[in-house]
């Protein structure tokens, strides 16, 4: 069968897709904000000596890592309002679901990075009398951040792709606008191809940067 490609309608509605991109980027940015900060806090809790901190952190991480993102998003949308009698903007729920998911994955990345901080650093801290919060902020965090950077960036870009899921709960992100446009114009091939290209064009440069950083790390280690 020969199919007549017509990109006209997609170009004409590019502004809609543009608005969708902005929503997707907003979701990704806010989720990363939660993921980077809460993720580090959770990573510290995972290493805590008291089970009071360790157990809830472990439960949170495992719950978010071992269930599909789709059910997390749907759960936040339909169950949180009923359970907690909390009715807020859908965007807030989406950011919460994606942000906590990212935090769980980032926590693992941070944890591995914290483990890679050499013992000598801790010994030096002890010798210098640095303890508690000072040690975390000035010694562990900079070290862990650098070591975890590739993982954090990869996770950050993954959440950009996972953010397409919110289209299924009718948040007008890029995926949702694409879906609408393809139904309106009966041009699924053109629309979905352009939408995929937009997602790709945003993720590809970042994953390239990650590869560069990893290559540099490999070289430094070798």
């Amino acid at each position, binding site marked *: 069968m020969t*199919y007549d490609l017509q990109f006209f309608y997609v170009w004409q509605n590019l502004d809609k897709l543009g608005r969708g991109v902005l929503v997707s980027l907003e979701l990704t940015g806010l989720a990363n904000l939660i993921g980077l900060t809460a993720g580090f806090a959770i990573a510290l809790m995972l290493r805590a000596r008291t089970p009071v901190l360790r157990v809830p952190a472990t439960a949170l991480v495992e719950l978010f890592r071992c269930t599909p993102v789709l059910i997390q998003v749907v759960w936040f949308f*339909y169950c949180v309002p009923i359970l907690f009698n909390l009715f807020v903007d859908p965007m807030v729920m989406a950011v919460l679901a994606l942000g906590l998911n990212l935090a769980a994955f980032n926590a693992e990345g941070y944890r591995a990075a914290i483990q890679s901080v050499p013992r000598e650093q801790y010994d030096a801290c002890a010798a210098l009398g640095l303890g508690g919060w000072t040690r975390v902020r000035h010694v562990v965090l900079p070290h862990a951040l650098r070591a975890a950077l590739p993982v954090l960036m990869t996770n950050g870009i993954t959440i950009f792709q996972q953010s397409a*899921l919110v289209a299924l709960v009718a948040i007008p992100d890029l995926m949702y606008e694409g879906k609408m446009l393809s139904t309106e114009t009966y041009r699924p091939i053109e629309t979905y191809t352009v939408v995929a290209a937009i997602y790709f064009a945003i993720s590809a440069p970042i994953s390239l940067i990650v590869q560069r950083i990893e290559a540099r790390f490999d070289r430094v280690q070798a």
Partner: protein
Amino acid sequence: MHFDPTIPFKYWDALLIGLGTSLRLTLICLAIGIALGFVTSQARQSRLLPVRAVATFYVELFRGTPVLIQLFWIFYCLPMLIGAEPGNFISAVLSLSLYAGAITSETFRAALKSIPREQYDTCRALGITGLRLAIWVVLPQALLRAIPTLLSNAVALFKESALISAVGMADLMFIGSSIANRTGRPVEMLTAVAIIYFTVAFPLTRIVGRIEARILRRLAV
């Protein structure tokens, strides 16, 4: 709100059928994906530029776009392009296998990097080249080193398989949310679905850690 934890048990048989579909799909796509991933990882090391370029483009494309749009593309666009309906199950298998191939090829690539250069030199000295080198020397070692990550890939694939509910396939997610809508009991049903996914995925992630430790110990001889 009155919380009734017995509701999901009334529908256990339907949920079980959904879980069956999810698991079957995951296993089929994993098998195809691992084969495809190994071939792709070899193609990415090829000396021929076109082969390398195609393999790299395929991997980056499927890793750089949401799985949801891959599904939509294969479900709605592919039939128009080829002028035939492959059917729901085939379409789902096709899209998730392509995704699995892309992620496992990265796993194999990392595993291939860890095979010492001496192995290749030895093979050359023994006159083992091409396909025989790939199948008898590279594959077994790559597979062994890749097992922990492949298991993580399997868990990831199982979780991503929930997306096929969006194109109307009756997997665990689809059946769970249908019952939730029908009965007006989203909290009980969706929580039950989440717990079922968790009970399958969590033990697998534990096994990953175990195997990882064992393989590391063996390789560190």
